[in-house]
């Protein structure tokens, strides 16, 4: 299905980057302000959806050539590994830990296994949503 919609495509090119930036911001700010893995992942996915609406699926797939099913599975795997990691340290499954460090450049930085966990969530969400959308639109 070829859509010839120049205005939408032109806007999409710019907007997608804004959405992506928003997604990354939401993802990283999640632990302290609204946001997090779910929203980040969903916003990221909606960027792909917009791309698919503005261009056709083949073009998008050419630009982003990975299989989103694997992305989803990778996300779940990351979560599992983070969870199992805590068993190695002899604490119950999925216990998170955090620490903060001072950096001259950025000030206080907090490092936490939650970020990894959330990354797994986000990857899974992106993978699943895009898989669903792509498989429906390929059926057209």
């Amino acid at each position, binding site marked *: 299905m070829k859509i010839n919609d120049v205005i939408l495509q032109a806007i999409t090119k710019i907007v997608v980057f804004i959405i992506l930036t928003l997604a990354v911001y939401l993802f990283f700010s999640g632990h*302290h302000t609204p946001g997090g893995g779910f929203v980040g992942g969903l916003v990221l996915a909606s960027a792909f959806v917009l791309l698919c609406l503005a261009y056709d699926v083949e073009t998008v797939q050419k630009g982003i050539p990975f299989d989103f099913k694997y992305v989803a599975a990778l996300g779940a795997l990351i979560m599992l590994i983070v969870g199992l990691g805590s068993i190695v340290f002899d604490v119950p499954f999925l216990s998170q830990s955090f620490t903060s460090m001072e950096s001259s450049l950025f000030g206080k930085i907090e490092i936490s296994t939650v970020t990894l966990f959330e990354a797994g969530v986000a990857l899974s969400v992106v993978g699943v949503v895009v898989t669903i959308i792509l498989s429906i639109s390929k059926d057209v």
Partner: protein
Amino acid sequence: METLIIILAGILVMVATYLILSKGLIRIVLGAAILTHAIHLLLMTMGGLKKGDVPLLGENAASYTDALPQALILTSIVINFAVTAFFLVLAYRTYQELKTDNLNAMRGFKDE
């Protein structure tokens, strides 16, 4: 406010139930989606409405609104999305294969 929201959720439940009981596939999918909205409103109300500030510790407020229902609803929203997507595809694939969306016509064979 709470009473209003509860009654509103109740009306959503009525609508959803009526839709789910109908024969058309799409109505059922929509009914399930609306039912989730009603449940979200209910959960939200159970934690108390506008009882404190946004549950962000950075705000340094005197009291925060109950965060637990919010966490539950957040989980529910995502699951609802997954279920709706699955229902939707199930509905349209069923329609494609069987050429009908009437549930009564979809009844399986007698001798199954």
